[in-house]
């Protein structure tokens, strides 16, 4: 007997919306990646709670794949951020206006 299922989902929803705000509102590209990480963390919590609710291990298997995808995403994302910084000297996406002519 731990807690009602809805409370865990509520926690996951709160963390997800925090990550969403962080993703959209920040001007720094690294903070954008942090927001994506927070959202993936929320999804993982929801999956583990669902695995316990239905007593199936598939939910936990999905969390393992989420971890792998998060690792791949953040490494490629950081490489792109470093490349964009080398090219423009800024982490602000508003400065990426090379195509503007």
């Amino acid at each position, binding site marked *: 007997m*731990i807690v009602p299922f809805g409370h865990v*989902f509520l926690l996951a929803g709160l963390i997800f*919306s925090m990550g969403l705000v962080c993703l959209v509102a920040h001007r720094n590209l*690294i903070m954008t990646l942090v927001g994506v990480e927070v959202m993936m963390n929320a999804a*993982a919590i929801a999956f583990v709670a669902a695995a316990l609710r239905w007593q199936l291990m598939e939910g936990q298997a999905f969390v393992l794949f989420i971890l792998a995808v998060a690792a791949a995403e953040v490494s490629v994302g950081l490489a792109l951020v470093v490349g964009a910084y080398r090219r423009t000297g800024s982490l602000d996406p508003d400065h990426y206006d090379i195509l503007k002519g």
Partner: protein
Amino acid sequence: MSLYAAIFYLLATVILTATGLAITRRQPIHAVLYLIVAFLGTAALFFLLGAPLLAAFVVILYAGAIMVLILFVIMLLQRSPRELGLMPQWGHATLLGIVFLAVAIAMVFKDPGSGIVLQGAVAQPKDFGRFLFERYWLAVEIVSILLLVALVAIIQVARGRGTSGDEAERQTNPVRNSDGTLYPGGVVSKSTLAAEQQGIVSNGGKEGHP
């Protein structure tokens, strides 16, 4: 309220506080440090919800590898302005998050299954690993290929501007004129160089490239 419930609400408070502090920091390095606390709380939550192997993976991968990688990149970009403000649309973003949260809360409380109290169960690491490699071995292989593709992509991005090695070599080795002076830019196309060597271009190097 049982002991497990008390631990859950304590962990939930820690995770929410750390995440909230993380997303409101202006300096990314502070945000990442707060986020490590949030991920350690998440690992403890996974342990409470009966996933000890995933708890270990979250500590190793998220709090260990990924956050350290982000810290390294932040330290790598030293000359960058550490404090960038918010987007001018941050009010709309917050409104979007609140709307999403309201919909999520409504869905959770409308669902009759949300009141079901979770029963404690533990997926032992041995059972979990056996289950994973018996039922989802193909997905594990696909994930390994995904990581390999990510590695190749990172190497390609980090090699430079995505150009071929020929152009990169030309940019690093300055081209010398016939009288030994350097071209100012150091970049010259191969056709012009060959034409000058054959005397086709009449005005020579100095006038053409001051």
